């Protein structure tokens, strides 16, 4: 997602304009005492340590066995801090952050729903956290059973006969999907060279396609924001390996022509890849496998509420249709009688594309996702989609008229506005986003999808209450009004945060990517 903050000196004018940082924001933002906190490398004192370890036994001299050239002593530059110093450091750092636990976080396409705390406790059970991946099967049946059951349920929820569990994140799942597609076509004697990708696609799509040696053909969506069968038919030929579609797409619109599109692609021997980033809109209501998708990656860190943790780790299992099962990367977990077994030997799956990561998958995320599925059950899962879609449509109805809606088409779990109505006052989507921070919310996704200029993508998710949505609507309406009455206030935002707008140009022109002694940021 693009993030063009790009501070210009001309914004300085707005900083002085009557933006009142003393008033509370409409979502509850108020004053707070925040603490400055230097880097760990800039504090501490020689000799301090923050750990308690057993002593090093006498008689074990590394220099007796390892050549001196391969040894080093203590590393210059490492910090030397006591435990309390470290605790205060990271406590203060955390207080500069906004999390879902802090407040509303309506990032479109990211599905920032509540991360259940019971899942944390379960993932930390020593039986899971302390299980070595190479434990013999007889010592790891609990882990294998969980992976197996999760795989069964994910496949059922998405409508596929099987799912690959190992990919570390959505983008890696996508890579796996395309690798399988390529292997499928190579096995049929015509590797094909092109992949069709709509203009609403996530940036990882063309990147993953290019990595697999495909050239991308971009398809234009219609004025209704949907991909039309005629467009696909015109581009589809026997040199197209696959089409990559997100459904609902990044405008939040359901690609209602999907079955026809899939048929057109299948008719010429191509496959249909689904980007499951927006799966939250469909849980229990519709299944990608039933729509004609042959392969789709899920994001456990979106739909299944595993924590986003500042940008990762994720987990990107991939659902596959029957025809692609032979090409699945290893390992897979199989159940034989009452025993679970990890299949890692390519001799058992000769057509496998291989492995994309070490070991078996992000087990920590599996435990959390399984815990959520177990607690929700079939009705709860369906309720997720219903409430996610209700929340997004409620926000859409309440903000229509205050912000420009580039597409009139119905949307599901997210909605995209743009800054057209605020443009004349010189206010951009970025300004709207920054001003929202001062009210007490994380901004929506900005400047994505690229088909909408100045896009503002809002995805509330199902775990937000009506009160929160009402506060959000009030704040957004207030910003819309303020953009006409006093645009300078938006230009100066955010004002309540520990840092004002940061100079991204400077960061890119003169990159400073690590601490060094005497580090100066010019």
């Amino acid at each position, binding site marked *: 997602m693009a993030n063009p903050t790009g501070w210009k000196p001309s914004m300085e004018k707005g900083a002085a304009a009557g933006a009142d940082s003393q008033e509370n924001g409409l979502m509850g933002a108020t004053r707070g005492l925040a603490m400055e906190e230097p880097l760990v490398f800039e504090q501490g004192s020689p000799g301090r340590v923050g750990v308690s370890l057993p002593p090093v036994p006498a008689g074990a001299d590394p220099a007796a066995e390892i050549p001196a050239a391969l*040894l080093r002593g203590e590393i210059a530059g490492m910090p030397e801090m006591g435990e309390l110093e470290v605790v205060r450091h*990271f406590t203060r*750092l955390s207080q500069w952050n906004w999390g879902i636990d802090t407040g509303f976080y309506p990032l479109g396409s990211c599905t920032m729903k509540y991360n259940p705390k019971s899942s944390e406790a379960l993932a930390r059970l020593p039986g899971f956290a302390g299980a070595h991946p190479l434990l013999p099967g007889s010592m790891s049946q609990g882990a294998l059973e969980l992976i197996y059951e999760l795989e069964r*349920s994910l496949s059922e929820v998405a409508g596929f006969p099987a799912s690959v569990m190992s990919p570390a994140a959505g983008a890696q799942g996508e890579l796996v999907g395309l690798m399988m597609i390529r292997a499928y076509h190579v096995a049929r004697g015509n590797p094909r060279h092109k992949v069709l990708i709509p203009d609403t696609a996530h940036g990882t799509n063309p990147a993953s396609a290019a990595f697999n040696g495909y050239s991308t053909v971009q398809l234009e969506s219609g004025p209704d924001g949907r991909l039309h069968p005629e467009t696909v038919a015109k581009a589809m030929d026997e040199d197209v390996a696959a089409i990559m579609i997100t459904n609902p797409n990044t405008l939040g619109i359901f690609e209602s022509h999907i079955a026809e599109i899939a048929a057109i692609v299948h008719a010429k021997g191509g496959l249909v890849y689904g980007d499951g980033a927006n799966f939250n809109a469909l849980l229990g209501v519709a299944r990608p496998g039933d729509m004609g998708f042959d392969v789709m990656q899920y994001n456990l860190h979106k739909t299944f509420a595993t924590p986003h943790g500042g940008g990762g780790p994720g987990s990107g299992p991939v659902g596959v249709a029957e025809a692609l099962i032979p090409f699945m990367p290893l390992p897979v977990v199989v159940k034989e009688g009452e025993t679970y077994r990890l299949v890692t030997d390519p001799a058992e799956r000769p057509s496998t594309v291989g492995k994309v990561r070490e070991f*078996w998958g992000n087990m920590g995320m599996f435990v959390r996702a399984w815990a959520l599925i*177990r607690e929700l059950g079939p009705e709860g899962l369906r309720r997720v989609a219903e409430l996610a879609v209700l929340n997004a*449509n409620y926000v859409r109805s309440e903000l229509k008229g205050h912000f420009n809606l580039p597409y009139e088409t119905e949307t599901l779990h997210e909605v995209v506005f743009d800054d057209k109505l605020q443009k004349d006052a010189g206010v951009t989507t970025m300004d709207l986003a920054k001003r929202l921070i001062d009210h007490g919310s994380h901004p929506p996704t900005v400047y994505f999808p690229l088909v909408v200029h100045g896009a503002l993508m809002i995805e509330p998710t199902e775990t937000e209450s009506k009160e929160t949505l009402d506060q959000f609507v009030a704040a957004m309406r207030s910003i819309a009004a303020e953009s006409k009455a006093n645009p300078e206030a938006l230009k100066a935002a955010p004002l309540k945060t520990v840092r004002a707008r940061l100079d991204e140009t400077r960061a890119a022109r003169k990159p400073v990517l690590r601490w060094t002694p005497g580090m100066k940021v010019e």
Partner: protein
Amino acid sequence: MRYHPHTPGDVRQMLDVCGVSSISDLFRSIPARLRLERPLDVPAATDEVSLLAEFQRLAARNRTEHPPFIGAGAYAHHVPPVVDQLLLRGEFFTAYTPYQPEIAQGTLQALFEWQTFVTLLTGLEISNASMYDGASATAEAVLLATRTTSRDKVVVSAALHPEYRKVLSTYLASTGDEIVTVPYGPDGRTDLAALDAAVDDRTAAVVLGYPNFFGVIDALPEAAAIAKRGGALAISATSEAVSLGLLQAPGALGADVAVGTLQSFGNGVSFGGPAPGFLAIREGLVRQMPGRVAGATVDRTGRRGFVLTLSTREQHIRREKATSNICTNAGLAALAATIHLSLLGKGGLAHLARLNHARGKQLRDAMKKAGFGLRFTGPTFNEAAFEVGDAQAVVDRLAKRGIAAGVPLSRWYPDDPRMKGALLSVATELHTPELIELFAQSVRE
């Protein structure tokens, strides 16, 4: 349902505002024949009390009473409880990628600290904000090398972690680059003569483990010199990061790129994931570096702050010309490692590393006393391959007693008859001398 706050009254009011009479009206855009007409076939919902009992039962079916003697790419270390308590703070845990830097300075500064730690450990100038894992980091490093040199061959040591090699060949199957594997010698290090013969003007990179899969400290300086002579990049891969607290930095020994995982710091073994992969490079390679990176800057009042930077390398801008398709990094896992490294600091890291080396020595001595020699003669850190006769039988026998003995090397090197009796085992600070003694006795009996 405790995560869904909507009351029937809420739903009614909201439907009114939307101008529809029921929630199913909002799904009109999904053609009827595509809608699921039955409930999902997943287990019935349960409550938290039952959930806890169910998961405890599952967890208990994994035998984790004793710290595992298995390393082979994942290392059980002591994670101080303070790490988790800081990590679990909701502002870290439930935050997303820092796209709005003003309200993500915690995440961004911590990433900058991670990057700095990685450069200190590896002795290279630049690190990114973490990778999915060591194996994919290795593959990405090789791709960086092929892009930078415009060459299409990579030479890899057979002593590099087999999982890393498998992942590398999966990634390179998509690009068509050639992988040549060179063997290891009786000392467990890469055969340098074979390496020299394999490196030519088509070679983009040379890759070896440091320490390698056998726990042996491989010949990185010599391998780097060979690579340099051939105009190739030298890439080192480290999966036991604690070793970098004792061993010379890869960058100081000639590596151009250092990859691996920092799982040993702050992260449990967790059945193989998640863990923070790392990738460090020397300065000149930065524009080809994959993954996110945090940089320092100032805000408009002149205060220092941090932002994601050099984004134009990445998929969301470059799309098909991106250096990689990577989007997510290993945020939380990297933060856990950063917190742990901050606690360890200069003295603590050196102490931990020396302690691990000492435990490794205690393991070797105990095994020797019990009659089991080493498979390889090269120097090791905390992990080594032992000649135990029937390694698989040993593993199976000790498994019945809840001891994870190690891995039989024949599993990954089935064609090397010298590996038939070899058991790869590790000892870390979690293994007390008494436990090590008990282990060696158990292997013998």
